[in-house]
């Protein structure tokens, strides 16, 4: 992974390009637009209308790079381009036919002009057909090699699993620190599952365990007002106390009901809704406490410091190609399932004909779908500054800034207002344990949209790591009305199933086969640091007699 230079600026034009611009302005570019053609793969080239095969006017050669003079439209090969500019004064700037890039025949080098790139890209956007299913997604392509490497990882994990199984199964106290069941207080598995995941988010864990939110000194609490952060801190203390008997998070539940009065009941709730609510609760209390009203800065409450990222939305006018960009904060990303195999009508398999639409759904596929350009319907026309009119537009999302902990929420609950019904999508989704978010960053998405065009490079992204490791999965089984949430936690490369009060060690195969609903990833450096911290802690502070009641089976 190469680090990005945050101080990147557009390269300065050479003297010859500046002279050309002064003399001809943008006229040449506008005329060139008519000769441009784009392939579905995103490559733009110059396609002259008279001859199909361009060749050099000096030597008739048609191989290698050919340059199309911006002034007289004659074509030269790389050997004869300098000859052309010598014979015709001022004919310095040309366009590389195959690549639609500017070239200066005097400097013998590629040159860059944002106006040229804008002209090329405007035409490109209009030409680009909507991406069909056949075209491989960018994320898939970039990750292909990485996936081939996974083969070796699996082999190693098999070996380590064998070592784990050889351990004495009676020695439950060899479970790492911080594993404790949570009793179900009446359909509260949605709460328990999310709490288990949060408790093991490395940055959150460091914050609360180091007592950075101290319930004793908390101002909200002393004024007899309930503070959600104090209760979260209480959960941490209980879970990391060393006591292995299942804990009943009553105080927390009560506190949360106060916060979200409309959800105070014993009915099953949505774990994702709960997750958002709890982050909101922590933010509210902390922001008041710290008295921060920073408009331009990022909120410094622990919830936002850990989970907050930023999304970029590019809206492009389909008529002129003008793009407007906005940025929005987010604490998680909700993804739609990518494949069509959750449609209600089953496609019957004809014998001998492979069913191409039954490719399995993957998390990367969902991320590709999330960052795919979406053509907005003609009933959703948006205002274009350039055309000064409402126009058909396309929208594309990308991630400008990644959070420390990335929560990916899979939208499995479909609510149809039209048909007045809700249903759950049960299709299996394959998800990776290691995730590289590079293809979904704004810089990658914008660059893939525009190729190596210069103006697309102007990003102020700082050097950020994009490699994530999974540490928790919240899974849902059953139907919308009666379902059950279970969390799988990965501690020190071993998976544990947290089913309310029952914690068991499980094989990673079980986790891979589970129906994920919320997948939690943490930046790689935090994951490894967390593992180090865990292994330094005493496995169990005191040897306790093995309890045969609900707990460790």
């Amino acid at each position, binding site marked *: 992974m*190469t680090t990005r230079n945050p101080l990147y600026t557009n390269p300065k034009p050479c003297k010859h390009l500046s002279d050309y611009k002064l003399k001809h302005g943008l006229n040449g570019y506008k005329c060139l637009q008519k000769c441009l053609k784009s392939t579905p793969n995103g490559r733009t080239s110059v396609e002259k209308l008279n001859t199909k*095969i361009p060749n050099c006017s000096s030597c008739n050669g048609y191989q290698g790079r050919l340059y199309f003079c911006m002034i007289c439209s004659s074509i030269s090969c*790389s050997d004869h381009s300098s000859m052309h500019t010598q014979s015709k004064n001022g004919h310095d700037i040309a366009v590389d036919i195959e690549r639609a890039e500017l070239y200066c025949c005097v400097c*013998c*080098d590629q040159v860059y002009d944002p106006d040229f790139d804008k002209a090329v890209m405007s035409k490109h956007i209009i030409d680009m057909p909507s991406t069909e299913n056949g075209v491989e997604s960018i994320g898939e392509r970039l990750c292909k090699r990485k996936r081939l490497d996974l083969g070796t990882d699996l082999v190693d994990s098999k070996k380590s699993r064998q070592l784990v199984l050889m351990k004495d199964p009676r020695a439950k106290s060899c479970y790492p620190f911080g594993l404790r069941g949570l009793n179900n207080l009446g359909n509260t598995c949605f709460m328990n599952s999310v709490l288990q995941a949060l408790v093991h988010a490395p940055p959150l864990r460091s914050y609360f365990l180091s007592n950075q939110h101290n319930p004793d000194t908390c101002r909200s609490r002393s004024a007899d007002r309930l503070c959600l952060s104090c209760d979260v801190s209480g959960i941490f203390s209980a879970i990391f106390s060393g006591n292995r008997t299942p804990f009943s998070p009553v105080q927390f539940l009560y506190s949360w009901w106060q916060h979200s009065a409309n959800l105070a009941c014993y009915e099953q709730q949505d774990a994702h809704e709960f997750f958002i609510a709890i982050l909101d609760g922590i933010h509210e209390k902390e922001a008041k406490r710290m008295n921060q009203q920073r408009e331009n800065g990022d909120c410094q409450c622990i919830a936002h410091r850990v989970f907050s990222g930023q999304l970029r939305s590019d809206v492009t006018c389909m008529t002129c190609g003008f793009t407007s960009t906005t940025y929005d904060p987010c604490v998680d990303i909700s993804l739609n399932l990518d494949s069509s195999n959750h449609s209600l009508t089953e496609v019957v398999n004809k014998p001998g004909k492979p069913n191409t639409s039954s490719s399995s759904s993957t998390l990367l596929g969902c991320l590709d779908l999330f960052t795919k350009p979406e053509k907005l319907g003609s009933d959703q026309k948006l205002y274009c500054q350039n055309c000064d009119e409402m126009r058909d537009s396309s929208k594309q999302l990308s991630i400008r800034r990644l959070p420390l902990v990335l929560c990916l929420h899979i939208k499995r609950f479909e609510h149809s207002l039209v048909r007045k019904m809700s249903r759950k999508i049960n299709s299996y989704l394959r998800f990776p344990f290691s995730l590289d978010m590079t293809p979904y960053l704004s810089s990658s998405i914008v660059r893939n949209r525009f190729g190596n065009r210069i103006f697309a490079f102007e990003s102020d992204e700082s050097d950020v790591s994009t490699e994530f490791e999974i540490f928790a999965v919240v899974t849902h089984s059953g139907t919308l009305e009666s379902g059950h949430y279970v969390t799988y936690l990965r501690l020190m490369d071993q998976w544990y199933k947290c089913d309310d009060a029952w914690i068991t060690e499980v094989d990673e195969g079980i986790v891979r086969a589970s129906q994920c609903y919320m997948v939690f990833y943490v930046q790689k450096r935090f994951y490894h640091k967390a593992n180090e911290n865990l292994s330094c802690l005493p496995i169990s502070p005191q040897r306790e007699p093995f309890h045969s009641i609900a707990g460790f089976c």
Partner: protein
Amino acid sequence: MLGYWLIESGEKERLMELLRERLIECGWRDEMKALCRSFTKKKGRENVTVDDLVQVITPKGRASVPDSVKAELLQRIRSFLASAAL
């Protein structure tokens, strides 16, 4: 003349696309990118032209194309010739 036919029929375009895909998949393009970066670092960004880069990496690039890729493309060209001859 073969080259002329390839372009005329649009086959060259298709072959180029295939070649691009294969070279990206096997990491060849990343290798070339790395070579360009190290060369640019050595010489300094202001002292490098695109032509320089092309000159430097062309021999290395040609030598490091995997045999499987070469074989696949040769096969495609052969089938094209066969169909064109008919």
